[in-house]
Each structure stands twice: as structure tokens, then as C-alpha cells.
């Protein structure tokens, strides 16, 4: 069963005119958000983007932008309390 989180919130955007069609975005995305046809990438499924930032960091043409961050409530509460950036460090678990 495919999980679905909130709709229309992901900050992902693609400047298709810059895309060189290398396919790296489809290689790194863990949720199959991108597809490449005729050497052009397109966003198939924006609502499944978890804003991990892998596509934007690895796109050689700088065609993708996304505000990446941890989708973790505890980290965000902690950042609200301490004024720091949210990160997985909030728990002592050693892993999120």
C-alpha cells in the first residue's frame, strides 16, 4: 500500500528548460517523483516528495530546487524551543 502524506505542500520545483536529461533525479529519488522522457525530466508525482534534497543536490544542471529538511515532529518542536535548525540530533537514539 502506498502511503500518502499531506497534499500540495512540497516545495519541489523543476526548471525543465535547464534539464539535460541525464536521469540522475530518477536514480536518486526514493519516491519515484521524477520521470524522464525524450531527454527531459518532469515531475510525475509531487505529493510524494519528502523534501530529502537528493535530486537538487545531484542534478548537474541545477534544474531542481527544493527546500530540504527533516520531516520529524520531535526535531521541529526541539528547534522551536531552542532556536536551532531542526536536525535528527534531537533524540539520543543515534538514529532518527
Amino acid at each position: 500500500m502506498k502511503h500518502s502524506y499531506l497534499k500540495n505542500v512540497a516545495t519541489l520545483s523543476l526548471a525543465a528548460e535547464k534539464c539535460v536529461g541525464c536521469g540522475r533525479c530518477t536514480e536518486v529519488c526514493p519516491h519515484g517523483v521524477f520521470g524522464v522522457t525524450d531527454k527531459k525530466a518532469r515531475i510525475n508525482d509531487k505529493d510524494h516528495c519528502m523534501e530529502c534534497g537528493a535530486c537538487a543536490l545531484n542534478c548537474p544542471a541545477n534544474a531542481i530546487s527544493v527546500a530540504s529538511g527533516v520531516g520529524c515532529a520531535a526535531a521541529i518542536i526541539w528547534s522551536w524551543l531552542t532556536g536551532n535548525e531542526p536536525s535528527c540530533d534531537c533524540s539520543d537514539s543515534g538514529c532518527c
Partner: protein
Amino acid sequence: MSMSNDCCSTAAILSSPNDIVTVTTELHYKDLLGAWKVRWGIGRMKYKIDPGLYRVGSPDQTSPVLVSANYKLTFDSLRKELTGLSCWLLILDTKGINVWCAAGKGTFGTAELVNRIAKTGLYGIVSHHKLILPQLGAPGVNALEVARQTGFTVVYGPVRAGDIKAFLSSGLTATAAMRAVKFTTLDRLVLTPMELVPAAKTSLLILGVLFLLNLFAARPFGPADFIGYAGAVLMGTVATPILLPLIPGRAFAWKGWLLGLLWTAWFIWFNGWLAPGFLLLASGYLLTLPAWSAFLAMNFTGSSTYTSFSGVIKEMKVAAPLIAASSVIGIVLLLAAALLG
């Protein structure tokens, strides 16, 4: 750790054979016991291995190089999938944290990878210039930058270690299924202890407070109250994660609240607290317990594999004030019920 130091057998092809440890691909009961302890939060911070280059089987200069993190569980789940293969393992120093979290922080990242390639002298050990990274490391690694600085090209392998063999034998191509992160019932089930243990610790604190309150209470808190509370905790930390996709709605707090409400309603009815004399108590519990389940369920966003930062922010902006207001009013009602009797 079950590693043997096999020193000279492949000396002919290695620049510094004594430094490279050979890794076995079987896990022993100690590894499995360790994994169980980590899940239940017993001494998990100390679970790292040394970063550096390791060998599996008898690799030569044409063998593939797999990159991974120095978290022992990650390392174990990788090596047990490599039976019969010969390859190199380049282990990055991620401070004992798994690939996915470390990539998010940047410790499984471009700088550490470039640095580790230089430190291990990988350039002189393999003749090809290709590294296979776990796909989940991609949020921390800029492949273009790695190539620019080291000459090594990065290929992202499958998400799960179990697909590595298929990936290698198909000429480094991954199917769409190998690229997709799943979040199966079993995945969620193994995460529940990590939700339950911290919640149980908080609960001890709450129990302490209730114990003190009982000294003054006209209606002391008893085993029935404890069961109601424990049920709400289990709804948020165990039932919501396991039933996640089956519960209607999208927001985690909502899912937890819904299960918490069902539990609390049933529990109040079961105890016969629907009567007029129990009005304060019943409404107090209806306000606090589902809110507590909602809060615990919302924390599970940190363990899920599909929630985005923007989504969690949006959810919390709505849920956090409601949870807080509902809890405060509920606690006031419960206190009134306890002190007035």
C-alpha cells in the same frame, strides 16, 4: 564484531595489505543480540565500527567498491547480503549513524567521501574509477563534486542491501522497485519499541505526579486510570504506526487522535463512567487521552519514510495548539474530579 584479520593472502595486489580487514558475511548470535538491544534502546550509541576500507571475499583491482556508513547495524545488514561476492567496502565515518540520517546531516557526505578516498589510498587499490553508493546516501552527496575532486564516478545502488546482488549482476541497473523506499507493516513494527520506550519513560514521571496527587485526592487515581492511560500510549506509539495506512486521513496527529478517541470512549463506557456522577472524569479523559495519543503519533513522523518537512510543519501548526489546549482543559477537569471527588 566478527571480523578476522586475514593478512597476507592477497598481498600481491594490495599496496598496504596489512591495513585492510577482511569481513565475513555471516552474522553471529552476538550481532543479532546487539541488533535487538539497539532497537530497545540499550546502549545503542556505542554501536560503531572503524571507518576505512574493508574487503569481502578476495577482491582484486577490478572488483566493485561499495560505500556505506559506520553504524554497526547498517554494516551488518550490508555484509550479510554479500555472501559469495568479492568486493571492497569503503566505510565512511558517519559517527555511528545510519546512511539515511547521516546523509540528512551531511556526515554521509561529499567532504567525508572525498576525504576517505584519499585516506584509504583507494586510487592505488582499484583500477576502475567507480563507486557504488547506497541510494539513500544521495541527499548528502553531490556526485558531480565527488567526480570533480577525486575522479571517481558515483553510481547510486539500490535502497535495500538485499538487492545489491541483483544490481551488480545486471550491470549496475536498478529496477523502479529497487529505487523505491517502502514502509511495510514489518518496517513499522520494528520501529515501535523506539516509540514506546521514551513514552514509557515520560509515563514514569506522570505516575510520580499522580502518586503525589493521590495524597490529597478525594477520588484517588487507581488501576483503572492507569489502564486508560496506558491504552492511550499504546494507541499513539504502537497501534497508529502499525495500522498507519488503514486509518483514514493523512495527518499523523489526526490518525493518533482518532484511535485515542476510540480507545477512550470504549474505556469510559466499560468502566461505567457515562453516568452523571462521572461527568468531570469522563470529559477530562476524553480531552487528555486522545490528545496524548495524537502527540505520540505525531512523533512517528520522525521515523516514517515519506513525510516532508513542509508537511510536518503544516500538520504541527494545526495540531500542536489543539493538543495543548485540549490537554490543559482536560487536566484541569481531571484535577477537579480528583480533588472534589
